[in-house]
């Protein structure tokens, strides 16, 4: 065998939360792991949802199994992913147009699933959450919380690496190496160098969300998936400090989540053809639905500035015994293609939800361990992720350090310990990201360009959407690693990527802000020379 081809126990395809979690679990069980991601971590559905740590209440009435999974994982993640979770609690409100009888059904279902659900007086709900629609006629308090998917994914990747795993971003799997009904590895294209590479492993795990159906095709097996697109809107600041849901059968735009410095309303739900899953543009119709329904949860949304719109695609999986695809599960689907299709060394883990990623990872890892004859128990339910260990007091307590603590937990220590005053300067003022935090991300968190830097730190995710911070971040990256020539293209790509999300909500103050941004980057920096170039992802 070619000595240049590396040999692993497990290759995990997909750098979303499921893949990252699986890579970590495998590595913690002592396996030699390679994680491959075609663009960047959390590029897909992981980075395109509410950021809601469901209590499970939403599924209690319709899907008890999912609800039970949710509440168990909810309680687990509060401990092991402490720094990614904000314990906000949530409300399920009944509006005059809703059926108050449903509240009783709802509370009973919650209790049956083991979810604490307290009926509270509407007046008490208004006191707890002043932004809530004041015309509510009923309210139930449940243990919802918000969770940061970017941080959660990175913490899993980081810990996988601490346990010996290798991880490569911008490596797209082009095909699988199949020999006598056995998957023996993958071939992947390195997007940055254009080089095709080969990696060998005893087990390959397909953890690609909706794109998993395409990977399965490459392996010659069929996994029926039904892309369900969901659009969301991000508002400029927090309107609410508790999650607000509608107490009715799940429908469009009935969850409002406070995430870090913003709040997010969503989602729509539309079945879309597989060919469109890479098209994430949000339509005016989606924006209208989100606003119209969102305003009913919190009337202030009607006059609150919207920062941007985005969409993601849920990987819904058809049950194996139902070729028509009518029986759709939201539950976890772990397929052993050896028993199912006669294809050894290949596992697909899909379905589920972001917040059940750890269970999904456990299922997939258990199966991989079985195939590899490794007998080691899963420890991810009790071992904290890096950053979520017991907090210690930091000597420096600036706003930027506290903001960084919200993102990196106990790892912030390395960011806060600065000696040079320049390191304390802010790159992103909206989100309080310091030079030191950017340096830390570049050293530790696979930063390849400005878009990846954004996912690691929140640079450019605030009100200005990159207007002021993009150049500063680019300059910090120049000092550290990049060539100045590449940085200009990177900057243009980053600004374009930000504009794509602003465009569907481009009115009022957003337009004024966008005009200023365009003037700076086109007029002043001359970046329009890069117009029409493909964006970095």
């Amino acid at each position: 065998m070619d000595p240049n081809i590396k040999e692993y126990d497990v290759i995990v395809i997909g750098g979303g939360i499921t893949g990252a979690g699986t890579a970590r679990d495998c590595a913690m069980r002592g396996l030699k792991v390679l994680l491959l991601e075609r663009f960047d971590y959390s590029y897909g559905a992981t980075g395109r949802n509410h950021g809601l740590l469901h209590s499970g209440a939403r599924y209690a009435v319709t899907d008890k199994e999912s609800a039970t999974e949710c509440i168990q994982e909810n309680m687990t993640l509060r401990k092991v992913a402490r720094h990614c979770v904000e314990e906000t609690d949530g409300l399920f409100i009944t509006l005059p147009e809703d059926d108050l009888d449903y509240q009783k059904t709802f509370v009973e279902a919650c209790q049956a699933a083991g979810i604490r659900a307290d009926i509270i007086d509407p007046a008490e709900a208004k006191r707890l959450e002043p932004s809530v629609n004041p015309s509510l006629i009923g309210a139930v308090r449940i243990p919802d919380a918000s969770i940061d998917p970017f941080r959660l994914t990175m913490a899993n990747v980081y810990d996988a690496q601490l346990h010996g795993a290798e991880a490569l971003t911008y490596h797209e799997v082009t095909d699988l190496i199949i020999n006598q009904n056995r998957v023996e590895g993958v071939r992947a294209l390195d997007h940055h160098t254009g080089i095709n590479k080969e990696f060998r492993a005893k087990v390959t795990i397909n953890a690609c969300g909706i794109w998993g159906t395409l990977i399965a095709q490459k392996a010659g097996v069929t996994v029926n998936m039904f892309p369900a697109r969901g659009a969301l809107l991000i508002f400029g600041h927090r309107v609410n400090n508790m999650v607000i849901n509608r107490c009715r059968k799940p429908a469009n735009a009935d969850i409002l989540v406070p995430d870090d410095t913003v709040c997010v309303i969503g989602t729509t739900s539309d079945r879309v053809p597989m060919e469109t899953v890479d098209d994430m543009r949000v339509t005016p119709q989606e924006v209208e639905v989100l606003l119209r329904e969102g305003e009913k949860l919190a009337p202030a949304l009607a006059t609150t500035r919207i920062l941007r719109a985005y969409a993601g695609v849920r990987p819904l999986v058809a049950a194996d015994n139902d070729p028509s695809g009518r029986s759709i599960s939201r539950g976890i689907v772990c397929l052993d293609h050896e028993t199912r299709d006669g294809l050894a060394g290949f596992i697909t883990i899909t379905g589920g939800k972001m917040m059940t990623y750890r269970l999904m990872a456990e299922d997939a890892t258990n199966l991989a361990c079985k195939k590899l004859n490794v007998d080691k128990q899963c420890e991810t339910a009790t071992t904290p992720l890096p950053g979520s260990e017991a907090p210690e007091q930091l000597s420096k307590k600036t706003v930027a350090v506290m903001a960084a603590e919200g993102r990196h937990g106990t790892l912030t220590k390395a960011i806060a310990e600065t000696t040079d005053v320049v390191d304390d300067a802010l790159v992103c003022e909206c989100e309080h990201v310091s030079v030191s935090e950017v340096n830390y991300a570049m050293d530790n968190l696979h930063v390849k360009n400005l878009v990846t830097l954004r996912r690691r730190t929140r640079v450019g995710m605030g009100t200005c959407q990159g207007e002021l911070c993009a150049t500063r971040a680019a300059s910090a990256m120049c000092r550290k690693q990049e060539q100045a020539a590449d940085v200009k293209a990177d900057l243009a790509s980053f600004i374009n990527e930000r504009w794509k999300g602003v465009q569907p909500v481009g009115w009022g103050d957003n337009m004024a802000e966008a005009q200023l941004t365009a003037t700076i980057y086109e007029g002043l920096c001359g970046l329009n020379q890069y117009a029409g170039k493909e964006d970095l992802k």
Partner: protein
Amino acid sequence: MADQMQLNNISENNFEQCLKCSICTVYCPVSAVNPAYPGPKQSGPDGERYRLKDPKFFNEALKMCLNCKRCEVACPSGVNVGDIIQKARMNNPHKPKLRDMMLANTDFVGSMATMVAPITNFALGLGVSKAVLHSVMKIDKHRTFPAYASQKFETWFKKNAAADQDKYSKHVSYFHGCYVNYNFPQLGKDLVKIMNACGYGVHLLDKEKCCGTALIANGMYDQAKRQGETNMESMRSAIAKGRTVVTTSSTCTFTMRDEYTHLLEVDNHDVRDHLTLATRFLFQLLDDGKIKLAFRDDYKKRVAYHTACHMERMGWAIYSTSLLKMIPGLDLVMLESQCCGISGTYGFKRENYETSQKIGDSLFNAIAEADVEAVTTDCETCKWQIEMSTGTPVLNPISIIADALDVEKTIELNKNR
């Protein structure tokens, strides 16, 4: 889309209308001299998003803000940057120190001090007192407290002027403020002289309390609010008699017109339009042809006008300067509008002295270069700062007008109006 949806973006003090252009930080006098201050943009609209997430994100550095409001003047998007910062401070109150209480309670301290004015002035001027204030009270030793008058303005007015006021056909009420009452009654006397010459009777308010500027700056919001309510009540009864309420202090005026609603939630909607600075009132009367002024032929003076921060915020410097320009013998030099650094009680505090003087430095140089006999400004605390730092005497525009006024001729001109 549903009616009215997203037609306006509304946020408290317009904090979300910030386009992050950072021009406020360019105009911030504190940012210019103190790199430790995060600047109005970061302290205001940027920090607000984090404070909405969790009040723990309040930053002690916000206390470095002077509340000069120059950021609000600079902002092209109408963001009340200064108000956002002040509101954040109000939501994170600290217990005022004895020093802060002393500096803030201008009313109480003033009443006590005027009773024994010669002793107070003598004692405050002593090196040993300054040393004690500096070390124990943390009031900077470089500062000289404005001298206390031996007779309060109110006392003088009641004894010497009140009885004559009813003979006029038109009337104004006068909010004199603490400075005129306790430290410098002459300014009040000057106003009475001008108004009377123009045919206006001057009256005190039923009950006047300190406007509360110093209380707000020192974290004593409840007391400021109570005093604000009293002032508004008194002004309402004056307005009911058809009187405009005039003042001779830009900061008192700004506080009562704008800070009452923005910060203290004191309702002043029915008072605001009837409360104005005396120079603005006079200018508007002149502009409408309702009064005329005559000036002495032998008056000659070269003075420089300094735009106080709150005059800049109100946009009213034009009234004072236009009025001054009417005096034939007055050679008026306009100084570039910038903060003098004192900001009320801010510069009195030992920890702020250096910043305070650094901020004022270029103004002091400009005054030295202007080669004038006096500086004129509408703010009394600017007066203390400029006099201490440059040695040039500082006069209120009203005092200059009173000095230059030909009283007999003015009375004659306004007799049958």
